[in-house]
């Protein structure tokens, strides 16, 4: 009898409470607001610190564009990972799905001369199929999503190697780069706005529609959702399939950015993407995976990395920052919740 706890609660978000004895009833108003705002405030602080340390460079348009635009693949993949997590699942195959979409575009466009638009559409279709496959195994066959998507993800990676013949395929039609990475709006690559759009859409649906409320229950207490007549399985299917589609879009952005696709591509973004959604779950709606929090987490991490790079820090400094930021953000938001 699996009870209703899940990812964010036990392993992840700030709600992962310990054993009995840590009361949660009495969170003060101030504490709650402090917790909600902790990450945005940290982002602001980071911004100010870098702006003071290196005002002319950090505040340059080029840098702002870099911060907002350079992490679009991560942003998109995090949005993909967000959906199954919101409904209490986890999908570790999304890196593989994105990679498969990317290699499909490259193979179709470069090796078979398929027009790039069509190739992208096929890639998105592949993403949906992969998502449906995950749903089939996890939801229909009722297995654990962690191990199952680890398995399907490895399988998808095998397919990538097969399709790509283990090498990098370059020379994808430059129109794609034009429409993702090169063209910019207000000085920021358009792909950032694609991510923003999807983020806002997820946030709106989750917060302002009945479907969002139902998904919340599926994520928080699945049995309750089922016994309230919610078609939990259908919502979980939807989350997996949509996650596959968005992961495929991350693959499209990857191809757009690099003009190429290789055996390892989008999958390297998977753990950072999970870091972002878990970090985001400490903020805005603490204890729940949420879209705005995810977006802020991505930008927070991107700002830190870009700032350190501008200051000429070594590559290890970025990793130390990344790790320390996660640890501190989670610890502080945990602490704020207590006071």
């Amino acid at each position, binding site marked *: 009898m699996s009870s209703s706890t899940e990812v964010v609660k036990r392993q992840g978000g700030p709600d992962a409470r310990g054993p009995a004895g840590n009361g949660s009833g009495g969170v003060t108003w101030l504490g709650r607001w402090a917790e909600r705002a902790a990450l945005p405030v940290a982002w602001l602080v980071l911004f100010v610190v870098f702006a003071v340390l290196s005002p002319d460079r950090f505040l340059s348009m080029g840098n702002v564009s870099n911060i907002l635009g*350079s992490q679009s693949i991560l942003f998109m993949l995090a949005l993909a990972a967000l959906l199954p997590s919101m409904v209490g699942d986890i999908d570790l195959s999304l890196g593989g799905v994105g990679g498969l979409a990317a290699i499909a575009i490259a193979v179709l466009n470069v090796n078979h001369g398929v027009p790039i638009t069509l190739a992208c559409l096929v890639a998105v279709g592949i993403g949906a199929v992969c998502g449906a496959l995950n749903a089939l195994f996890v939801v229909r066959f009722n297995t654990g999503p962690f191990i199952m998507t680890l398995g399907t993800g490895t399988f998808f990676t095998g397919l990538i190697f097969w399709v790509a013949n*283990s090498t990098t395929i370059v020379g994808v039609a430059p129109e794609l780069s034009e429409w993702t990475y090169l063209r910019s709006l207000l000085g920021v690559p358009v792909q950032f706005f694609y991510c923003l759009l999807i983020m806002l859409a997820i946030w709106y649906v989750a917060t302002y529609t009945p479907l969002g409320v139902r998904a919340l229950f599926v994520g928080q207490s699945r049995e309750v959702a089922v016994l309230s007549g919610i078609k939990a399985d259908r919502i979980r299917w939807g989350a997996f399939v949509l996650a596959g589609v968005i992961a495929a879009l991350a693959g499209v952005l990857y191809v757009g950015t690099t003009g190429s696709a290789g055996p390892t591509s989008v999958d390297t973004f998977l753990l950072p993407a999970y870091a972002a959604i878990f970090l985001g779950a400490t903020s805005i709606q603490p204890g729940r995976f949420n879209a705005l929090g995810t977006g802020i987490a991505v930008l927070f991490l991107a700002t830190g990395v870009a700032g350190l790079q501008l200051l000429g820090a070594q590559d290890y400094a970025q990793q130390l920052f990344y790790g320390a930021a996660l640890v501190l953000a989670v610890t502080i938001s945990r602490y704020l919740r207590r006071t």
Partner: protein
Amino acid sequence: ANDAASSEPGTAVSAETIAQLKTEIAAGQEQPQWAAQGPAFSVAGLAGKKILSMPVSSQLAGCDSMARDVVEIAKSVGMTESTYFQNDGGPAAWVQGMNLAINQGFDGVALVCGIDPAALAPQMEAAKQAGMKVVDMHLADVSEAASPLIAGQTNGQFNDAMRKGVAAALVDANGNAIDALVITSNENPPSIGMEQTVKDEFARLCKECGVESINVPIPSYATDLSGAVRSALVRNPDIRAIFTVYDAQTPFVLPAIKASRVPAKTYAFGGDEQFVKLMADASNPMGTDMGPNFSWMAYTGADQLFRVVAGQPPIPAAQAYSPYRLWTPANVGEFTPPNFGFGDSFVDGYRSLWLDVPGA
């Protein structure tokens, strides 16, 4: 973009130096000719033996095809059981390949594209105990001492490639002082010498030029490289030359240059088909890419391997290398199959060194 080459001639580098660099560049752009690096020897004893050929990573097209070529060449001299070991790169995978070779009684192992034998010292030791000859192909710069762990090695002119790159960058800058960025991946040993070479060359030729470097580990290319280059270009918009010690960095560096709208170009080492091809597209800000021909390197490596398996002394590490060719947008038109601008002199050349081929 305002091309540095079209600007007024600068004074940072003297005109005669520029002229001299241009000659060097022109020489580097020529098609290389084969020359024997050692005496001919009998390969009759190789018949019935077998080798295993393992690339540093099958994900690198050039190394992958080179490793497969080595197998084909070995088969052509009677080592018909030879096999290729496909892998995703990294010590864990290499250990598996070495284990397989040792356990299945192979006579020789080709480590293709510079798998550092020191990073597999116990396997080298075990191979030695098993009487198996290991030859590392395209391992280090010719200036470096040979590795004591293996039976033989072939090298590359990594540092020279960087020298040519610096020359091209200075010529492109038309004598103006420029800043340069070197992108290293230090877990790959030649990377360190290449970075130093770029710094030394700039120090020698252009005192006013600045060189900075960033290190990006190979597994982080997809996630970090574009952003790191963009940040570097924000930090120093005077960078005009970006040296990639490894041309697999290219797909991640180009978009960063394009998006930052800085008129910088890449000066790469590698010669990998995938990336040299990109030069034909004028919209790609690529200066030069210098590198070997992987078929040629397969022959050079096979030659060395045959020598040690046949009990011959190996060619000294400083002389065992395949020549590089400098690719620029000017001569990239010659980068065409079958031999991608290297001709076929090496095939007949090497075959003439291998005497008594069984069945021939």
